């Protein structure tokens, strides 16, 4: 019989329980001192507004020479874009500015029932296209650079396929392309959902429902264990703030405009249209072969939301002769906020763009 592996000394067990309770009680004061949680640290200016959309331009550091081709960051409709600029030492935006990019970001706002009828055509050929035209006009350039994040990357791909003459370089970050890889839990769950019934019933899809879905991917870690681990941080006010910022972002989930959601789930998740074809946005079919500009595709190797294979599927699907892949050793969130990402991801994007922006 093998040795019994649980060797928790009674005094240690007792001490652990006491430590936990003490940390909790002592940490309460720090928690109360946390004040309001600030997010989005880099100074920015709203340069264009349309309906609930706001296009921001980030202020560039004086000491950096700015590239002539602006970069438009297209974030997902799910969750809020301040994840890219969460705090001073964890900011994708800041990292991009440091490489000389002139960074603009689309904030989609919070759709309400009045936005229920917005379609993917309205988002891609409408809002995104008008932002792109604004940048082309403002900067006097034919083409701009696009960085699409997660679902925003999928939008970026569709947009570039539909308007190749307006995109100089495309960067996709943790972007789903093949929505039916075997390890894609979200995709597996959505296959048996009657999306028409859900959208017809609810109009917009509530953010709470999406939160539930995302937390259900790892329920014990995401709704249990992380709070036990959090107790260890309670003696450090900065760490509490960092934790609370992330907590705020996780639960700050806008509702999804019903018609756009219907099309996204049916065409992309259920029919896997980016791979199998047949996606029509507005009046035109999306053909990824029409994406001929340089493409940088960045994926996270431990991504539980967008499995790496789902992103890597882009290789060979576009018509680009300049396709680069970058694997980041982290997860879907870590790719924006981890220390490693600040050192690795943003310089990679910046350098790649700089080499192709002249």
């Amino acid at each position, binding site marked *: 019989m093998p040795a019994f592996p649980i060797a928790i000394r009674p*005094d240690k067990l007792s001490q652990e329980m006491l430590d936990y309770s003490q940390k909790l009680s002592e940490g309460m004061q720090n928690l109360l001192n946390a004040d309001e949680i600030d997010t989005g640290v880099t100074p920015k200016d709203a340069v264009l507004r349309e309906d609930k959309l706001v296009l921001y331009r980030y202020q560039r550091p004086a000491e950096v020479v700015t590239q002539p081709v602006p970069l438009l960051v297209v974030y997902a409709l799910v969750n809020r874009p301040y994840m890219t600029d969460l705090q001073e030492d964890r900011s994708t935006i800041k990292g991009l500015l440091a490489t000389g990019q002139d960074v603009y970001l689309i904030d989609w706002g919070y759709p309400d029932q009045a936005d229920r*009828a917005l379609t993917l055509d309205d988002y891609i050929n409408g809002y995104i296209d008008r932002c792109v035209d604004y940048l082309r006009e403002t900067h006097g350039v034919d083409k701009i650079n696009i960085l699409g994040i997660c679902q925003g990357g999928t939008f970026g791909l569709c947009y570039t396929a539909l308007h190749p003459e307006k995109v100089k370089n495309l960067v996709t970050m943790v972007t789903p392309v093949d929505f039916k890889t075997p390890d894609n839990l979200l995709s597996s769950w959505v296959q048996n959902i009657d999306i028409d019934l859900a959208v017809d019933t609810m109009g917009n899809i509530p953010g709470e429902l999406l939160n539930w879905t995302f937390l259900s991917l790892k329920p*014990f870690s995401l709704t249990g264990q992380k709070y036990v681990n959090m107790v260890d941080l309670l003696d450090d006010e900065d760490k509490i703030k960092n934790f609370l910022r992330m907590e705020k972002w996780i639960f700050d989930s806008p509702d999804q405009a019903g018609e756009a959601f219907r099309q996204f789930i049916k065409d992309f998740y259920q029919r896997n249209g980016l791979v199998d074809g047949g996606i029509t946005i507005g009046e035109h079919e999306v053909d990824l072969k029409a994406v001929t500009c340089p493409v940088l595709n960045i994926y996270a190797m431990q991504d539980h939301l967008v499995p790496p294979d789902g992103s890597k599927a882009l290789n060979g699907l576009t018509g680009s002769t300049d396709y680069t892949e970058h694997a980041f050793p982290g997860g879907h969130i870590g790719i924006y906020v981890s220390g490693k990402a600040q050192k690795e991801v943003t310089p990679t994007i910046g350098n790649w763009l700089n080499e192709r922006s002249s």
Partner: protein
Amino acid sequence: MSDTNTSDWMDIQRKYWEAWSELGRKSMGLDNPPANPWAGALDHWWQTMSPALPNDQARDFMQRLMDQGKAFFDITDSLTKGLAGSNPTAEQGWGIFSKSLDELQKAFTSGQWDGEQTLHRLMAFWEMPFDNWQRTMSSLAPLPGDMLSNIPHDQVKNGINQLLSAPGLGYTREEQGRYQALMRRSLDYQSALREYSGFFTQLGVKSVERMRQRLLGLAEHDKTVESARELYDTWIGCCEEVYAEEVGSEDYSRIHGQLVNTQMALKQCMSVMVDESLGALNMPTRAELRTLQDRLQESRRENKQQRRELETLKRQVAHLLEDGAPATASQAPASSPPRRTTTTRKRTTAKSTEK
């Protein structure tokens, strides 16, 4: 610290928390002592402290920490029951531990915990995904999510279905039909909810077995678990692993789809009835609003397109006037970049397009 001293010291600490717990229990007028004194003491401390917190946000957050702290204590207590305070041989250790795991499996299988609070809470831990669903739905539904959960409908379902299949009669037959549909959809949703809940119960059994295997694996490699946190993390790892394996299955996809679809069908039925009432009161209904939203969006789409075409035409005319030569529309496509001569570096005021 010698074993004797350790044991004494642990007893003192335990008594300290038990005293706190007992004091709190009496002051709250509660009769039954808590099964796990650590969790109990934490509970009483929290009940004393929470009213002093200045806002709901801090209270909610601390509540989460408290809940998970208790889960942490409960898991440790369940998995080390009978081990603490003794120095068992390998055979005794495995024997005691196997018994604990067997009890857990039995509780998961039967859904009963013989009045044992800790075990109950440990099982509740496995209901976490299910509980998350209930909370989410409660926040979205016009009726409380658990309103129908206690109806013993499995026993009476056939009878109710038979009753509901009777056609409506007379002037209110349409209304009767709507109520019948509502009841049928309620029953469908409850069935789906029970199947979803049942799925998690069997995952609990599998997780216990996975834990046993994980510890055997550790023992074979001469590794030991030396802290409650390590034990807790190992248990979470086992649960998450089993969960990930099972929820990726076709079967789960079907159960999950059924849960969402039956909930939506029920909610849709409720919305129709709410609309009927609003219509009767001569108030705008959801259906009417949606028709208006669709038409409005269509008009806005056309309007934006026309505005854009107009801008393009203006540019083309300006271009023609500048060049002094005629040009066709095809020479300046709508997508061509607008010409710009001034810098916008200082431009910080938002340009507002149509609202």
